[in-house]
Structures are given as structure tokens and as C-alpha cells.
């Protein structure tokens, strides 16, 4: 019964999401794309977090995907849509290669290294003038799908759905056991036959692929990028805040957080154009202090408490 309700709810939300362009104007669709992009990044960040690894490198893989896609079109004459697939794969391959080095690190050493990688990518793009366009960035000859706002929306939605699907797979398959065991106790995990490095590598490659894909979709949808926009720290900070607010170690938590904070951020941008980042920072601090399980965790606790109170009568 409970399962059925949640499937119906998911189907309704999916139907509304797919049909949105029919009744939304250009501006709301643009906001929706922004929210969906952040949502996909928040989910992908959480997927790796389930193994206990905190990445600060979301913007790095996102920007890498953006540049890989843009340069594949500009320098390689690749089809724009194909370039998104290429960029996702490129980010995955890079993560695979880098993973061999950095997935041996743990806790803040891992986090700091991912943050440094992002900076390195940005500086490389900044300085490879001839190839990457340097600080001015790159301008594509045209926006994908001729800039049709419905098509752009569906493209972004597609990227998001792939990410949700991957996250759902992580929750329902043995990845869930492997990642949670690694997060809780690596020694126990090893003793039970979990090849820790292998599962960390899978998680890192898959999440980096998603992040690269979303970066590529973003650049193809706007038609230009610069090192500062592609590797914008917001693409690390916002998804992190969203996942924390919604509740980590789940798919639904980062989704809820992205909707709330994504829409709030649009409003905040208009209210305090230069100070809205402070609000995210305050949200992260408050959530960590008072609500470490996030909104979804709090809701679950309340439901459980309600049930126990009911059962007690």
C-alpha cells in the first residue's frame, strides 16, 4: 500500500515534470533547468558521500564536462548532442585515472585534494589560451536545439533522470551494502569480502560522469562558458547545501533540498544580489548544528515517533 502510494506520487511528479514546458513560460523553465542541474549535482555528490567520502570537487568535474563538450564541438566539429555523451565519458575516464591516486586518501585529505583538483582544472583552462580560449572562455557557434526552451528543458530533465536512476540503482543494488559498509567500518567491510577500492572507484567514476554530463548540458544550453563560470564554486557549494538540507544518504533528500533551496536561491538572488551566498553558508551551518539528518531524516523520525506513539496506545 505504502509502496503503491509512493509509485503513484513519483509517476505524477514525473508526468508534471515532463509536461511542464506546455504551461510554463521561458523564465520559469529557465529556473527549472537551474534547479534540475543543481539537483543532479546534489544527488551525485550524495552518491559518493554514501561511502563516507566528502568531495569538494563537484565544480571541477562539472567544468571539465562543460569544457570537454564545448571544445569537442568547437575544435573537433562534433555534433553537440554527441559531445554531451563524449564529455560525460571524458569526465568518467578522468575520474578513473585520478581515482587511482586520490581514492587512497580519506576524510579531509580526500576533500582537500578534490578541491585542489577543481582549481587545477580551472587554472589549466585559464592558461591554455590557444586551445581553451583562455580567460575569455569559449563561444559556441550555436546553442543546441536552436535554443528551443522546451527542448533545452527536456535535455536537462533527461540528465537529471539518468542521475536519479543511477542513484536509485545505488540504493537498491549491492552498491548500497558496499558503500554503507565502507562508510561505517572499512575493516569490517574488508573482512566480509568488500573490495573497498573497487567500489570507491565505481562510485567516483559514476558520480563524476554525471557531473561532467550536467556540465556539458549546461554549456550546450547557454552556448558559451569561461573558466570562472564553468568552475564556479557555486556548483560545489549549492549542491552540498541542498543535500545537507534535504538529508544525506538518500536520493529523495538531495531532491527535496534542491527544490527548496533552488527556488529560494532564485528569490534570494533578486533580493540580495551580492549577499545570497551568505544565506547558503548560514543554512549549511544551521543544518549541521540542529538537523544533521536533514528534512527527510527529520520527517522519518517524526513518522517513526508517531507510529510508536500509536502502537503504545
Amino acid at each position, binding site marked *: 500500500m505504502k509502496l503503491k502510494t509512493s509509485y503513484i506520487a513519483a509517476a505524477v511528479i514525473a508526468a508534471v515534470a515532463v509536461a511542464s514546458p506546455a504551461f510554463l513560460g521561458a523564465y520559469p523553465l529557465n529556473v527549472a533547468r537551474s534547479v534540475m542541474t543543481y539537483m543532479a549535482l546534489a544527488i551525485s555528490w550524495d552518491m559518493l558521500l554514501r561511502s563516507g567520502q566528502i568531495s569538494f570537487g563537484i565544480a571541477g568535474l562539472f567544468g571539465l564536462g562543460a569544457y570537454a563538450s564545448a571544445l569537442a564541438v568547437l575544435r573537433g566539429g562534433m555534433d553537440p548532442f554527441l559531445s554531451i555523451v563524449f564529455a560525460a565519458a571524458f569526465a568518467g575516464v578522468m575520474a578513473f585515472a585520478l581515482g587511482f591516486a586520490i581514492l587512497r586518501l580519506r576524510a579531509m585529505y580526500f576533500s582537500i585534494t578534490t578541491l585542489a583538483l577543481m582549481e587545477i582544472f580551472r587554472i589549466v583552462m585559464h592558461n591554455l589560451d590557444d586551445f581553451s580560449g583562455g580567460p575569455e572562455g569559449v563561444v559556441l557557434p550555436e546553442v543546441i536545439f536552436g535554443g528551443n526552451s522546451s527542448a533545452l528543458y527536456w535535455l536537462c530533465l533527461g540528465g537529471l533522470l539518468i542521475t536519479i536512476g543511477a542513484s536509485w540503482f545505488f540504493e537498491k*543494488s*549491492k552498491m548500497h*551494502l*558496499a558503500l*554503507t*559498509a565502507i*562508510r*561505517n*567500518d572499512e*575493516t*569490517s*567491510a*574488508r*573482512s*566480509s*569480502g*568488500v*573490495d*573497498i577500492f573497487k567500489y570507491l572507484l565505481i562510485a567516483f567514476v559514476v558520480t563524476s560522469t554525471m557531473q561532467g554530463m550536467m556540465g556539458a548540458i549546461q554549456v550546450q544550453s547557454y552556448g558559451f562558458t569561461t573558466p570562472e563560470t564553468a568552475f564556479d564554486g557555486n556548483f560545489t557549494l549549492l549542491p552540498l547545501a541542498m543535500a545537507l538540507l534535504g538529508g544525506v*544518504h538518500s536520493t529523495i533528500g538531495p531532491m527535496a533540498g534542491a527544490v527548496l533551496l533552488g527556488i529560494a536561491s532564485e528569490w534570494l538572488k533578486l533580493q540580495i544580489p551580492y549577499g545570497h551566498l551568505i544565506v547558503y553558508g548560514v543554512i549549511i551551518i544551521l543544518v549541521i548544528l540542529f538537523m544533521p539528518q536533514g528534512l527527510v531524516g527529520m520527517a522519518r523520525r517524526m513518522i517513526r515517533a508517531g507510529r510508536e506513539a500509536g502502537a503504545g496506545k
Partner: protein
Amino acid sequence: MSKLTTTGLTKAFSGLVAVNDVSFNMEEGEILGIIGPNGAGKTTFIHLVSGILMPTSGRIEFKGKDITYAPAHERSRLGIARTYQLIHPLENLKVVENVMIGSVFSRGKSLKEARKAAEAICAELELDRLQRDTAQLSILEIKKMEIARALANEPEVLFLDEVMAGLNSDETKQVIATVQRIARERRMAVGVVEHVMGVIRELTQRVIVLEAGELIAEGPYETVSKNPRVIEAYLGGAA
């Protein structure tokens, strides 16, 4: 048949030799006691054979195959399982999932098969309500869960590192009976580290005694417990 053999196994932590030149073997179906005073190197020895630590020198063979430097997860797949002196529950997994992971990752079973296997093992250990969080378990239940998790690997060699610690005498008896039955049924070699000598006497056919990392005596408990060197190791060189 010899299941597990070590030859000259040594582990030094920058100068401190925790395990020194230990050679031993475990036979199929045997329950072996590993005793010695605190700091004798018993846990380090288990860390070495289960692959949690890598030895400084020496050799470890499992059924004749060299596994001296094999990673822990591979040894788990080959058939070496263990529990820990300090409990290691996976607190974000349900009890049944805690037990399942050995079946999934060591035996390559599907989630469905692994769940079934876990339920069967837990039933055998009389551990119920498997949908609970580990935080809701008593210490006896956590110990049972950890034994169940080790058994889910379907090991041929199993090490129990002080599983009786913290249990009362009834609970201890219950665990002893279970270990004996399982070892017999599955023809497993079981290594038991224990400070309670009653447990060692009742459970094991043979014991090895470690002191300051060295193997100082070996044989049935009754013989070893009369060995002057063993008595001295336990009581200190006061006399």
C-alpha cells in the same frame, strides 16, 4: 588436511616485534585455542592471517596456496573469516544486511539469495527480528550478529577474537554450544582467542600459547596449562 599454515610469521611495528617467528597450522574440523597474556600478540596474529595487517616476514598458506600478502577481501573470499575483539557493527545497515554482506561479497550471491542465507544463519544462532537497527541490539545480540556475519562468508577457517568477553556464563555456554555444533557440521577449522580458561578447556582440542609475540607452548590444554613456562608467562617472573 592442513587448512592454514604459517611459517616464521613475524610482524614488527618499528622496533616492537608484536609477532615473532610464529609457525603453526590448523587442521580441518579442529578447534584451536590461542591464549597468552595481554599484549602477547594474539590479535595481531589474527590480523596477519586475515590480511588486516601485512607481515614483516614469514609466510602464510591457505590449503597450500601462498596468501602472505593477499588483501583481506580476497582472503575472505578464499574462506578465512573472523570476528573482532572490539565490536564492529555496521550501524547504518539493518541486522540482516550486516549479516548478508559476507554472502554478497565473499560468495557472490544475489541480494535475494544472500538474504535467505543470512536468515538461515541467524535462525541457527537464535538471533531474531532482523529488520532492527544495530543500535537496538544487546551486547549478546551484537556478538551473535558478528559471528553470523563471519559465517555468511561460508569460511573454512574462522577466528573468534574474544567473542565471549562481556557475556555472562549462560550466554557464554550458549555461544560455545553453537560454535561447537557449527564447527562440527561444516568441518571448519576454528581459532578461538579467549581469556576465560574454562571456555578454552571446554571448547578446544589443542591450544597454542603466545608470549611477547613468540609461540612458547603448544598442545592440549591440560598439558599446556601445567607447562612451567606458560605458568610463568601468566603469573609473571616473580618467583
